[in-house]
């Protein structure tokens, strides 16, 4: 009704300008892989990529495609499939600026964004090289303590876009996120949330008692598009498992820049993706 439902994932990707600050969740939350491929197809550049709190294939592909200028994350890993090859290469040649963090620090920065406060204090980190390399973080005395009590202050993270994949959305733009509560923080902190879903459904998810509690209200959502198997080749909730053969072949291909380019040609800009996902 308000143009919130897009006809294609590429149309959703077109909303993201070069230089945007985006935030993506960890794999268990639901990764918008088809949207990621659409972003590579459109050639997005200079992204500031925040990971809540880590990333995997999604970050590796964006980095390999040259879309990312800066990454803020607690880890980049393909999990049981090993290290993230394009990430490692980009770190090695200095082409990627990294802001190493620790998981709860990114959560706290995002929660500060969600609460509209300029920063949040957090325990830990003092004496680590993680803190030593973050000139955007501060250490200050806890004003409620009479004794010496330094604590880290983390500035709010307020991305332009949060990108997620979810199970379903209605035509109003309400999105079913189920138990993945971290999406509320992501969406609250971000100017708008772009969502791909397995299915667009009739009705209103907020008015159904069974779905309301697990629904991200449309007021946070900048656009939705249907993308069946939109998290492929990653696992998505209990809906489908990771495509292990594809992941293994990705890791092999992405070991070299050329292999990675072939991968993009085949599965991102080419038309093998749809067939492979079936």
């Amino acid at each position, binding site marked *: 009704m308000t143009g919130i439902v897009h006809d294609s994932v590429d149309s959703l990707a077109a909303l993201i300008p070069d230089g945007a600050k985006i935030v993506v969740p960890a794999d268990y939350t639901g990764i918008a892989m088809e949207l990621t491929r659409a972003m590579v197809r459109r050639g997005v550049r200079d992204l500031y990529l925040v990971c809540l*709190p*880590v990333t995997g294939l999604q970050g590796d592909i964006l980095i390999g495609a040259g879309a990312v200028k800066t990454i803020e994350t607690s880890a980049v890993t393909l999990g049981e499939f090993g290290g993230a090859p394009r990430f490692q290469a980009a770190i090695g040649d200095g082409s990627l600026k990294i802001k190493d963090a620790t998981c709860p620090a990114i959560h706290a920065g995002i929660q500060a964004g969600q609460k509209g406060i300029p920063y949040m204090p957090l325990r830990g980190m003092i004496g680590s090289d993680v803190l030593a390399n973050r000139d955007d973080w501060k250490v200050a005395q806890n004003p409620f303590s009479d004794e010496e*009590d330094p604590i880290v202050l983390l500035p709010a993270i307020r991305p332009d876009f949060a990108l997620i994949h979810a199970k379903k959305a209605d035509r109003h733009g309400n999105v079913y996120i189920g138990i993945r*509560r971290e999406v509320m923080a992501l969406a609250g902190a971000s100017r708008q949330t772009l969502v791909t879903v397995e299915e667009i459904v009739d009705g209103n998810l907020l008015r159904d008692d069974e779905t309301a509690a697990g629904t991200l209200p449309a007021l946070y959502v900048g656009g939705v598009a249907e993308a069946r198997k939109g998290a492929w080749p990653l696992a998505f909730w209990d809906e489908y498992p990771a495509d292990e053969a594809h992941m293994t072949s990705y890791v092999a291909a992405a070991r070299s820049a050329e292999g990675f380019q072939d991968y993009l040609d085949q599965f991102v800009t080419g038309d093998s993706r749809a067939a492979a996902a079936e």
Partner: protein
Amino acid sequence: MSDFPAPDEIRTEELLIAIIARLLEGCRLVSSGASSPIPGGGCLLARHQSGGAMHVNVLGSRANNLMTNGGVELFDWAAQGRLDAFFLGGGQIDGQANINLVGIGDYPQAKIRWPGSFGSAYLYYLVPRVILFREEHTRRVFVEKVDFISTPGTSDPEVYRTGGPYAMVSPICQMGFDKDRRKFHLVSVHPGHTVEEVLDNTGFDIDVPEHVPETILPDRATLDIIRQQISLEIAECYPRFAAKVFPEAMNAA
């Protein structure tokens, strides 16, 4: 009297699960981390041994998930003082129990880049029993000094710190850590291994008591529980691990 199996009847993974469960005794809430089948198994065994009194969260599990408030809840437990034990590994661990999960060489352009620090730079400060666990015991891992401190083993007295290293478990030995002396000490050596082997494969100086006991094996009843029950619970999250370590149980199930 307990009945003990012979050392060669026990797989290393089973021994490590039993050691970890022992280290968790008396905890109220424990959690394993990502990609951690052995710590997860240790938690599940410890819960069994507690008669169900222990709350166990296995990250990535559906059946043993206690988090209903999103990915941040584990960290909130730690700061609330509710999380009694957690596990950390590391590409490098040094003699002061500093942990490096970031890489080798100069930061940020590491020669070898690992995934990153995950939650270590926080949980290590706030969880009373952090169990350091590595399946590789070599001088490559256990170094004199880490190249990057993802999280320090000890802190100055003004730093708020209720947690830290409680034990180190590897396939050849178990160590303890003295936070005042900032130094590891050998607690026991697993059957089939020697103090000399430990020292040869550890790149930092450790305290070795005059008499180093052999690690106590799980008794047969415990081993049966691990093989017949814990194995199946582990398999929910870690089917490949379970198939490798517990082929009999997996075939029977």
